């Protein structure tokens, strides 16, 4: 494998030498950038433009020239609601249900995630034995694929599963978790926290370890109580990292799809249908394929994500400067 790659890479040298002769100075850089820019152009920038074009055109034709211009009709359809808090009052109730689900999902998921990750990072930051081992214990699920995560928990939560056996041991009734709207939602949040908390713990731990020791030494000198030390030193100094973690978790939380889709399929009913699943089903899984509607929903999502990413870059930069 490496030999084949190596052979071709040496072959590229011949045209590159010619190119070098014609290009002056540092312009050769463009040759190196070329493949990457083509890929970015085709699969990132062109799609963004097309997305807008599709969002403003109607019919279920795939080809752009077969589609008719409908102005803001798709956006109007998406936002046609008499009461935004009640999905049933909307023209596209499923869209709003998915928006509500996603909002509730990220509020719960990000809140719990940041809390649990913080506690875990604080504990890992104590003087403990085998810290490297414990760090990787919490990190391990991050590597698992979303489908595997979903199946692991589905197996535990099935009717005759481990969880129900545990409940029966405690003298409680068995629950058919996946058929109950609230339980299915709660477990979706849980498994998503389970799968990703290791990642945020890692970042918070790095933030904790960056706090200089002598600040704590000074606090010990002044005989500060542990809780006071935490509130007055650890938390303020960790705040920049916390902000980054929160925004990162939000960006990823809004885009949650894989594990929840494989876990519940969006059900029961539409109880766990999130926004990406709505886009996927509107554009690809249903018939007719409503590309315009899916694109319009994507653009709304893109705006939210762009704002969040902007925040992330700002916080990260401030961290790097500070």
């Amino acid at each position: 494998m490496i030999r084949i790659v190596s052979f071709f890479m040496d072959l590229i040298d011949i045209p590159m030498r010619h190119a070098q002769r014609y290009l002056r100075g540092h312009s050769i850089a463009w040759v190196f950038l070329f493949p990457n820019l083509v890929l970015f152009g085709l699969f990132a920038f062109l799609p963004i433009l097309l997305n807008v074009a599709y969002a403003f055109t109607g019919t279920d034709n795939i080809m752009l020239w077969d589609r008719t211009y409908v102005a803001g009709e798709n956006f109007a359809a998406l936002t046609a609601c008499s009461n935004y808090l009640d999905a049933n009052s909307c023209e596209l109730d499923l869209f709003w249900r998915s928006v509500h689900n996603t909002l509730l999902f990220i509020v719960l998921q990000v809140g719990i995630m940041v809390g649990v990750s913080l506690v875990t990072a604080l504990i890992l930051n104590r003087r403990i034995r085998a810290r490297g081992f414990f760090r990787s214990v919490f990190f391990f699920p991050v590597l698992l694929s979303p489908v595997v995560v979903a199946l692991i928990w589905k197996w535990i939560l099935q009717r005759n599963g481990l969880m129900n056996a545990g409940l029966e041991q405690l003298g409680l009734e068995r629950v058919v978790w996946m058929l109950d709207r609230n339980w299915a939602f709660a477990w979706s949040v849980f498994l998503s926290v389970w799968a990703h908390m290791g990642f945020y713990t890692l970042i918070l731990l790095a933030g904790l370890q960056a706090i200089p020791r002598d600040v704590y030494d000074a606090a010990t000198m002044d005989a500060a109580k542990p809780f006071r030390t935490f509130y007055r030193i650890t938390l303020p100094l960790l705040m920049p990292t916390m902000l980054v973690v929160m925004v990162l978790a939000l960006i990823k939380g809004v885009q949650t799809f894989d594990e929840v889709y494989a876990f519940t399929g969006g059900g029961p009913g539409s109880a766990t249908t999130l926004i990406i699943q709505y886009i996927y089903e509107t554009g690809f899984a249903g018939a007719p394929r409503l590309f315009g509607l899916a694109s319009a929903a994507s653009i709304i999502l893109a705006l939210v994500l762009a704002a969040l990413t902007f925040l992330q870059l700002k916080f990260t930069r401030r961290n790097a400067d500070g």
Partner: protein
Amino acid sequence: MAKAIDFLTRTRGHGKLHWTDWFTYAYLLFGILLMFGPVVWLVMSSFKTDAELDRFPPRFLPYAAQTVELEGYSKPLPLYKVVSGELAGETVAQVRRIGLTSQVVRLDAPDQIVKIGLKDREPIERISIATENYTNLFSKFDFLRFFWNSTFITVVATVIMLIVNSMAAFALAKYKFSGRAAVMAMVIGVLMIPQTVVLVPLFIVTKELGMLDSLWGVIVPGAATPTGIFLLRQYMLTIPDEILDAARMDKASEWKIYWRIVLPLSAPAIAVLAILAIMWRWNDFLWPLIALSRSDNFTLQLALNSFQGEMTTQWSSLLAMTVLTLLPVALVFAFLQKYIATGIASTGGK
């Protein structure tokens, strides 16, 4: 034992265990259970027979009924120990079960059927690993095909990504050309366009390029990542320019400088990026779900997901397949977890 406890409870520096130390270790123990437990349970379950999987409450170890082959019966018969009634204490083989009675035979008299109540017998079981869950994957399902698809996509996409991204990173790190700032801004721009928000047009571009429903349609659209450029560029900036200038003195071409000097020197960063790329590709789900429609082309993740719809009752195959899907990742984790941790911490995920 006492030594082990002593080892675990020893604290660094302090003499005595504070209650917070107890809390710490309790938390960590709970963490091990919660993080590894489900995976261990999955692996254990994947070795169980269908009958054992249906059992409630479930048991930890995979048991299977012991069977015996007797003359005159085509199938092996399950063995039971009789606990009460006439035959109490004897070992019998069950021929068939009708309602609440069970027709059994003694092992030494296989043609003499005796009827006993279901409550009078207990199955004789032993720990046995149901390897047929795994072998079925190869005989009944096209497991190797999915495995090959996943492997092909992962390997090829990772190689392409490393080459393309390292070329761009090299250009951005080592040349001062007009437009560099613009290109950097562009890369950040791409960072702001996650795949999830351009699904429809991405689908159409891929379709127009004739790559839809082929493995290339999964490989190419994600072949260049802004994360990769940032990671590699950051590392390449630390390579001193003097080395490049020395090579230029020796009439090395710019391509040779990239391929023979800068790339080998960036090996640590390349390794981190390679591990990340392998993980992303192996676990990728949403884009393959859209780009691939024939089940011949399915990756392992897609196959798992589509089978769980079809095989709600066939947990035995599903569990075995899940284990095989997570196996490569578990191996990577076991050997390379240090790199992964640093890689992820420095790139902020995807």
